[in-house]
């Protein structure tokens, strides 16, 4: 009797797509290490990849006289109301990314966009704290 050939189709998994995406079946290295899923909206310990800096962020770092991303190292893209969002510590709330902004399918690139948008938002005269400052500023 002729043997049936059981050729299994190889399924290619793109490591780039899975990396850094929480909630997928494949756990992140840190999740594997601690044996639990990460309860945050992102991996707070993810270190930024400086090769992915946006031109705006390069300009911001230069303007401030810093050597690196400084406080922005702790800024990541999270989600709110099922939409990508960034936490603004000054306003103590999540700021949502508009639908028209296309986001890359990579956490490092998404984080860089989050950082750029957050700086622009915080420095804007339309930031919610501006009205509070105008009303309550003491000096």
């Amino acid at each position: 009797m002729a043997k049936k050939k059981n050729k299994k189709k190889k399924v290619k998994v793109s490591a780039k797509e899975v990396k850094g995406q929480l909630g997928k079946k494949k756990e992140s290295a840190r999740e594997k290490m601690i044996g639990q899923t990460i309860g945050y909206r992102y991996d707070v310990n993810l270190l930024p990849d400086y090769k992915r800096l946006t031109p705006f962020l390069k300009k911001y770092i230069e303007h401030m006289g810093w050597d690196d991303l400084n406080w922005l190292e702790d800024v990541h893209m999270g989600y709110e109301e099922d939409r990508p969002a960034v936490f603004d510590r000054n306003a103590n709330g999540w700021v949502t990314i508009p639908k028209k902004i296309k986001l890359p399918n990579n956490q490092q690139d998404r984080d860089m966009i989050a950082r750029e948008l957050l700086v622009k938002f915080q420095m804007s005269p339309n930031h919610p704290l501006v009205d509070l400052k105008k009303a309550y500023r003491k000096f």
Partner: protein
Amino acid sequence: MANLKTAEKKTKAQSMGMHTETLTGKTQQKFFNPDEAENFFYWGTFDVDFNKRTNLDVKDLDCKQANGKIDELMSQGYGTIVIKNPQGKHSLGVGILNKLNLIFEGSLGYFGVGSIDGPIVRVNGRVGWSCAENMMAGKVVIEKNAGSCFGAAIRGGDLICKGSVGARTGIDQKGGTIIIGGDAGAFTGFMMQRGRIVILGDVGINLGDSMYDGTIYVGGKIGSFGSDAVESPMTKDDIDWLKRKLKVAEIGENFDVSKMTKVVAGKKLWNYDALEPTEKKGAI
């Protein structure tokens, strides 16, 4: 309380693998404006020039007068201010929300350069308790030793002490990086929630006690681990980051970071996984 749905259609955030649960509920509904103009300073602060330099002698000023004078100089566009004769005064250089080069020629008392957001500060002497408490952004370099609660509750930026520091360094840390060139005291990283602490020397007892998250790197001996602080393997990312950061910190450039001990939260005290997804939402 938000609702938990089992909708088949994936949202944008879900399809990107950012989360699996579906949440709805209260939100501030603030949206980014992608057309926002480029602007690098907060409303109400000053666009200063680093090349415009001045000296300020605070020998006969109290802390409120000295801080008011720094504000006045920034409003005139001075981007580099050298403070003469700080004489260990308390609460100097606090609440600066500007880009600025601030140099103290001497030592500071307690709560120096607290709640700053942006400036680059250099202290040529020592600092007392709670230096850079609640720091938001910027870089602070202390040339000598620092007291207890160094970088208490910092949220961002780089805080560097080239000498040794007292107990409870980085207590309640919520972000940013603290780098110590010498030794650190007991309860370093007590209740830290985020961010990174790097100690090139030895550290006292109860390191990272009740830490919730974040990372501590130690180059020397560890007195003892605190509750729920555990050792973790060093990765290539850790080594690369440490090399780069120590260069930024102007210390330990030639230090062999691969031999450092990495300490993280054991997460035994975590109860996130027992929470409803809606409760997780508020627990950031």
